[in-house]
């Protein structure tokens, strides 16, 4: 992209307006961008000078459910994943009610509960999914379900902590990383591409050490 007027903002990728549910702050970012319209020469690239308002860190974010550690669980993937998403259900429903019924779940045709069971069966049978459209949409839907449940807790939450909890502590995070490794180790270029759009570089780096993979 080569916009004629651009405002650089110090916010995480995915949050161009800075902070959710903070209308005054969002308006200040918009106003700073709209002020660039009055410039007579360009292209313009200007820094937005304020960080997003800090969250309340006095009480560390608590997971709404206690995720069992990966090594102490002898049960099958299907059993562990089904139990985990079941424990999250009341928090997902609470979060959805709190957001006035809004949820990002629904990209896949089947429900997250059905899809997580199917994924668990495939992992148990060591069978790599072959329908990649289904796989991507199922994973994104289940991730949305987890994040909506995990952020339904009262109070503010820290984005990084929630992401770390998801990828480090949940059975589903471990399942996606397992799928990532299997697809990434394949000789098939399409499987490698699918691997890269399942798990973020940050989580792969934390699970495997310094990143060597540089492709999108």
């Amino acid at each position, binding site marked *: *992209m*080569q*916009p*004629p007027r*651009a*405002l*650089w*903002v*110090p*916010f*995480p*990728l*995915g*949050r*161009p*307006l*800075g*902070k*959710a*549910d903070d*209308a005054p702050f*969002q*308006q200040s970012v*918009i106003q700073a961008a*709209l002020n660039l*319209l*009055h410039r*007579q*020469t*360009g*292209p313009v690239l200007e820094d937005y000078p304020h960080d997003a308002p800090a969250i309340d860190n006095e009480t560390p974010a608590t997971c709404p459910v206690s995720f069992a550690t990966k090594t102490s669980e002898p049960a099958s993937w299907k059993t562990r994943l089904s139990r985990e998403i079941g424990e999250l259900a009341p928090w997902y429903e609470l979060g959805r009610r709190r*957001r*006035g019924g*809004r949820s*990002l779940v*629904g*990209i896949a045709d089947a429900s997250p509960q059905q899809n997580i069971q199917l994924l668990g069966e495939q992992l148990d049978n060591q069978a790599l999914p072959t329908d*990649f*459209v289904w796989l*991507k*949409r199922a994973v994104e839907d289940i991730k*949305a379900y987890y*994040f*909506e449940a995990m*952020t339904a807790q009262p109070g503010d939450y820290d*984005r990084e902590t*929630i*992401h770390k909890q998801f990828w480090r502590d949940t059975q589903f995070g471990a399942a996606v990383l397992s799928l990532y490794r299997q697809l990434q180790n394949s000789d098939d270029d399409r499987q490698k*591409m*699918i691997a890269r*759009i*399942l*798990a*973020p*570089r*940050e989580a792969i*780096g934390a699970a495997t050490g310094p*990143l060597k993979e*540089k492709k*999108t």
Partner: protein
Amino acid sequence: MVRLSDLPDYERDHLLSKNMPPLGPPVWTTPTKPLNQMRVALITTAGLHYRDDQAFDFADATFRPLDGGESPDNLIMSHSSVNFDKTGFTEDVNVVFPLTRFHELVNQGTVGSLAKVHYSFMGAGLLPQAYESGASQVAGMLKQDKVDAVFLTPV
């Protein structure tokens, strides 16, 4: 647009490793009227659409029209990249697609009016040239809608 210096090392290295072709000469237009007489459209590259629209594919240069009169709370996201935060959008659509904020600006008299239709692309996995056809189409529709300025929110 996020500053490169604010990104984690692995993300900055990833972006700097891309050897992208140079873009054409900068486009520049000086407004001929004040903001409170302008008609503004929103365009996002966040891969947003309504639940019954076709989801974006893994690499996809198409776009989805977003109705300016419909609640943005009905939007969902099918962006294929996993390397940006989606929890902000989960909490509040406006953090990515600030339609409610712009309605407030119109009501305050700061902005003249909003477009009837806004647009969503999915910015991932393709070179800029792939978007040329869709972008030209959108430009034509923005002209038909008498839009004077576009507010672009990349993720």
